[in-house]
């Protein structure tokens, strides 16, 4: 070896593989304004679509007169449900087994519902034309409160199914009832409660909010009449699913539908579903023979394309007097709005709400979820969380606090006492999940040590005394949350979307000169897949990440996959990458053995090469092998070096973490200031620590927003309130706290590289942590629960109820 020969460390560094803080490939275009988002795409002859929307929350449509709009120069067409019926597209199936109106068919069921679709030469003319479409409404009684949905005299919302007693998820008990979903051992749970020393019961309302990515939803449809082919660009977190749904709806073969998700300006669950705007753009392109673009504005986004949460969770815990939890019982009233368009795997009407036993070894539990219709927007998407996991974690982590309060214990001690212990993994939960791995005690202890928990509690005690003496008007709250996520949907045995199993995929082609392209069934929306996927491949097959191009979002070139949401990319597609890479590596090993004239078993892998065991100077690099694989493969071996893997995960992954928040609350204004926030995450194997940290910052910021003020609210007439950035709470850099991050590493035993996923953990764990901090501040005064969102006026009202303003 001469001096120029790179050392092993240098070779490793050059790969920029797993574990390094590789700078993002995506940023080169994004920092120069060269991203390519849907609204950046222009096609010759392109038209623009815009919606006429309902001003009422519940009304019968007596007539639609589009003649004035059609008379406006530049207006090409106005679509209504009548036109769509001709194509059998007035309604479309939802992911949850319901049907949803594409355009209002006879009535409207929520404010801003899509009534007519105007198509014009430019977006200005389209906006003028929607003002000219005259819709005559007859108002109907409005149902806003889900607790009144099943009253005997409640207004009938869904006349189309009012007499249908069987829904997609079993029996419907009322015309506004969607489903009842029950999991667990009811008699066993009842019995444990009857025997318990201590029980608590509290209804936690997790309010309605919205994922609100900075880019709204958009689509551009271009139908080629000659070829009979449809090309559809859109803000799609799951482009293949969109292609399948588009094919089922339009009857165009999937082979003639080209779905392309270009760069996406954030998704957070908002861009999983199929929305009327997409369908109308497609229909308008088929009808007019020209490309049609639809881009929603922010108010349309916040008020129509999905929502998140809206769960009323009556949560009960039973325990022994020394703090051993013996049972859990939860009833959820789920407000699904006008159509059941929840984006959950099809067999899971309430997502994975049955992860609600959390990080604790609770021997028996029972969960019931009742879904009901109201005059609100449809949706129920997983806003930066796996399906309903945020709700589940909120319920258990608030309940733990309430129980600790009743027991007179520190909630951390209660958590420690009931944690699933390291040696219990794989752990079978009372509500049916098999947790893969965890070391909760160590994570909790590390967090406590990092923040100086005991000293914080001592400081809080001093502050409370000072408050009682009237020396301060500030209360200190310490919020703790310990969460277990369930991500990586999912195993085909229990996860599918409209019958499509929730595998994911990767195709890797190594080119003859040793660079490579990988194509994926997932779709990044800011997570940095182009960067991190290449790192996995680099480590697996020894090609520098910079020489690996990752491509997603084009259904013509990418293998079929279920897309990116629910933190599934790393657990599922990340596994597919490793498996595809290992197929390549296996073939490469055969080639290397042939070239080095040894048996395959005599070779060992070393960073970027196969070398003969004990003779490291005898080696073939992956680059050498790639050339040979194409041009001089061993006799009898097929040329080429590529592989595809479709990965059906054996189980979910279960990331976890311990979060601690310190808050100072001004009881006179209700303003809560986060003094400190510490987040420890365990996402198993860490692929790129820089990106993990970025994901944690972002997730915590969204958690902060949701917990402290972000909501979609309705007045009694069903008018949506706060659907613009004036009111919808998106914190700026000034309000956003500083985040401290930390980690432990407990790899997933069933994942090829041990990774668990991280993008959503900080949201899932963050919301209860903030809420616990607010609640903790007032707990010493006897308060058990203050509802979210914790905006200043609600905190002030809580203080008022506790008599703190006298």
């Amino acid at each position, binding site marked *: 070896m001469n001096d120029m020969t790179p050392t092993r460390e240098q070779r490793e560094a050059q790969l920029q593989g797993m574990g390094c803080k590789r700078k993002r490939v995506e940023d080169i275009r994004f920092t120069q304004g060269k991203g390519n988002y849907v609204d950046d795409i*222009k096609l010759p002859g392109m038209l623009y679509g815009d919606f006429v929307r309902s001003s009422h929350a519940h009304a019968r449509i007596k007539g639609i007169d589009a003649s004035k709009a059609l008379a406006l120069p530049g207006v090409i067409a106005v679509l209504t449900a009548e036109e769509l019926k001709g194509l059998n597209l007035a309604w479309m199936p939802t992911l949850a087994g319901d049907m949803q109106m594409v355009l209002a068919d006879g009535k409207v069921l929520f404010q801003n519902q899509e009534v007519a679709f105007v198509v014009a030469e430019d977006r200005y003319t389209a906006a003028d034309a929607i003002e000219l479409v005259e819709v005559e409404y007859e108002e109907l009684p409005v149902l806003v409160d889900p607790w009144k949905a099943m009253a005997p005299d409640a207004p009938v919302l869904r006349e189309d199914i009012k007499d249908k007693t069987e829904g997609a998820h079993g029996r419907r008990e009322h015309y506004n009832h969607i489903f009842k979903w029950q999991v667990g051992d009811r008699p066993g749970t009842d019995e444990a409660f009857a025997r318990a020393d201590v029980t608590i019961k509290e209804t936690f309302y997790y309010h309605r909010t919205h994922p609100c990515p900075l880019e709204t939803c958009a689509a551009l449809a271009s139908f080629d009449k000659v070829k009979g082919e449809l090309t559809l660009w859109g803000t799609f977190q799951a482009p293949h699913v969109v292609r399948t749904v588009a094919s089922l709806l339009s009857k165009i073969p999937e082979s003639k539908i080209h779905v392309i998700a270009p760069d996406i300006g954030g998704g957070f669950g908002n861009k999983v579903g199929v929305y009327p705007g997409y369908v109308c753009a497609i229909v308008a392109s088929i009808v007019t023979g020209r490309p049609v673009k639809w881009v929603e504005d922010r108010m349309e986004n916040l008020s129509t394309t999905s929502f998140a949460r809206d769960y009323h969770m009556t949560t009960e815990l039973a325990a022994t007097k020394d703090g051993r939890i013996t049972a859990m019982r939860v009833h959820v009233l789920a407000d699904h709005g006008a159509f059941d368009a929840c984006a959950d795997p099809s067999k899971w009407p309430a997502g994975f709400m049955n992860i609600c036993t959390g990080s604790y070894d609770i021997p028996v539990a029972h969960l019931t979820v009742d879904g009901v219709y109201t005059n609100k927007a449809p949706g129920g998407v997983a806003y930066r969380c796996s399906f309903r996991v945020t709700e589940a974690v909120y319920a258990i982590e608030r309940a733990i606090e309430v129980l600790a309060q009743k027991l007179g214990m520190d909630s951390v001690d209660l958590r420690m006492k009931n944690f699933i212990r390291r040696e219990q993994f794989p752990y079978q939960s009372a509500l049916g999940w098999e947790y893969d791995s965890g070391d909760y005690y160590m994570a909790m202890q590390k967090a406590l040590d990092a923040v100086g928990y005991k000293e914080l509690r001592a400081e809080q005690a001093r502050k409370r005394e000072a408050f009682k003496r009237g020396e301060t008007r500030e209360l200190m709250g310490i919020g703790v949350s310990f969460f277990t996520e369930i991500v990586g949907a999912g195993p085909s045995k229990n996860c599918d979307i409209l019958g499509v199993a929730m595998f994911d995929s990767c195709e890797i082609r190594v080119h003859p000169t040793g660079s490579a392209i990988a194509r994926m069934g997932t779709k990044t929306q800011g997570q940095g897949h182009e960067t991190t996927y290449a790192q996995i491949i680099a480590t697996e097959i020894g090609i520098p990440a910079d020489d690996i191009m990752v491509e997603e979002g084009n259904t013509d070139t990418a293998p079929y996959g279920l897309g990116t949401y629910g933190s599934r990319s790393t657990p599922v597609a990340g596994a597919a990458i490793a498996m595809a890479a290992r197929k390549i590596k296996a073939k490469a090993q055969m080639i290397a053995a042939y070239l080095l004239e040894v048996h395959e078993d005599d070779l060992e892998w070393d960073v970027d090469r196969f070398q003969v065991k004990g003779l490291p100077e005898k080696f073939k690099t992956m680059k050498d092998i790639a050339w040979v694989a194409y041009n001089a493969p061993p006799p009898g071996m097929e040329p080429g070096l590529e592989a595809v893997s479709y990965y059906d995960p054996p189980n979910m992954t279960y990331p976890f973490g311990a979060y601690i928040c310190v808050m100072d609350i001004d009881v006179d204004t209700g303003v809560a200031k986060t003094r400190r926030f510490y987040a420890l995450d365990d996402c198993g194997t860490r692929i790129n620590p820089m990106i993990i940290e970025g994901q944690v910052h972002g997730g915590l910021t969204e958690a902060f927003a949701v917990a402290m003020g972000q909501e979609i609210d309705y007045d009694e007439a069903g008018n949506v309130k706060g659907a613009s950035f004036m009111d919808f709470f998106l914190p700026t850099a000034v309000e956003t706290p500083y985040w401290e991050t930390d980690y432990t590493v407990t790899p997933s035993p069933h994942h090829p590289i041990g990774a668990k996923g991280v993008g959503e953990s900080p949201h899932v764990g963050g919301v209860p942590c903030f809420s616990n901090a607010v609640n903790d501040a007032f707990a010493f005064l006897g308060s058990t629960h203050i509802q979210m969102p914790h905006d200043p006026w609600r905190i002030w009202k809580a203080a008022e109820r506790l008599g703190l303003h006298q």
Partner: protein
Amino acid sequence: MSTIEQVPVTVTVNGKKYQRFVDPRMLLIHFIREELNLTGAHIGCDTSHCGACTVEMNGMSVKSCTMFAVQADGASITTIEGMAAPDGTLHALQEGFRMMHGLQCGYCTPGMIMRAHVLLKENPDPTEEEIRSGIAGNLCRCTGYQNIVKAIQYAAAKLNGRTVQEAAE
């Protein structure tokens, strides 16, 4: 509806002079994106809250979604596309955003960088607090701002000739 007369607009964008006749109601963001095909600036909220449409106009940061193109007549505008040097060398801010992981989905980034550009001209060495107030007209949904602050600090350090921090985390 009466047909409105188009009005002439002359603007210099990224050093290049453009003359167009536009409908008076054409928003500056649409003028930049659709007439000039500079799609770096984005629309995020329509109501002047998010700052994704921020461009630099006559040395000020403005929200181009809440301004008519006619109001920019005679102005000199810089967009994200004008930030890198002609030879392709990235501006210190563009470099800083990448080095410090100051972006994720990239949608807010052009507006954020353009805002930071004016901020650093007015205050070449801002404190963290000054940066946070200085970018408070720009919303980001991905990063939680912490690394954006670091990215701007990175650029400030570089522009002030100081050694820069190596990487995020």
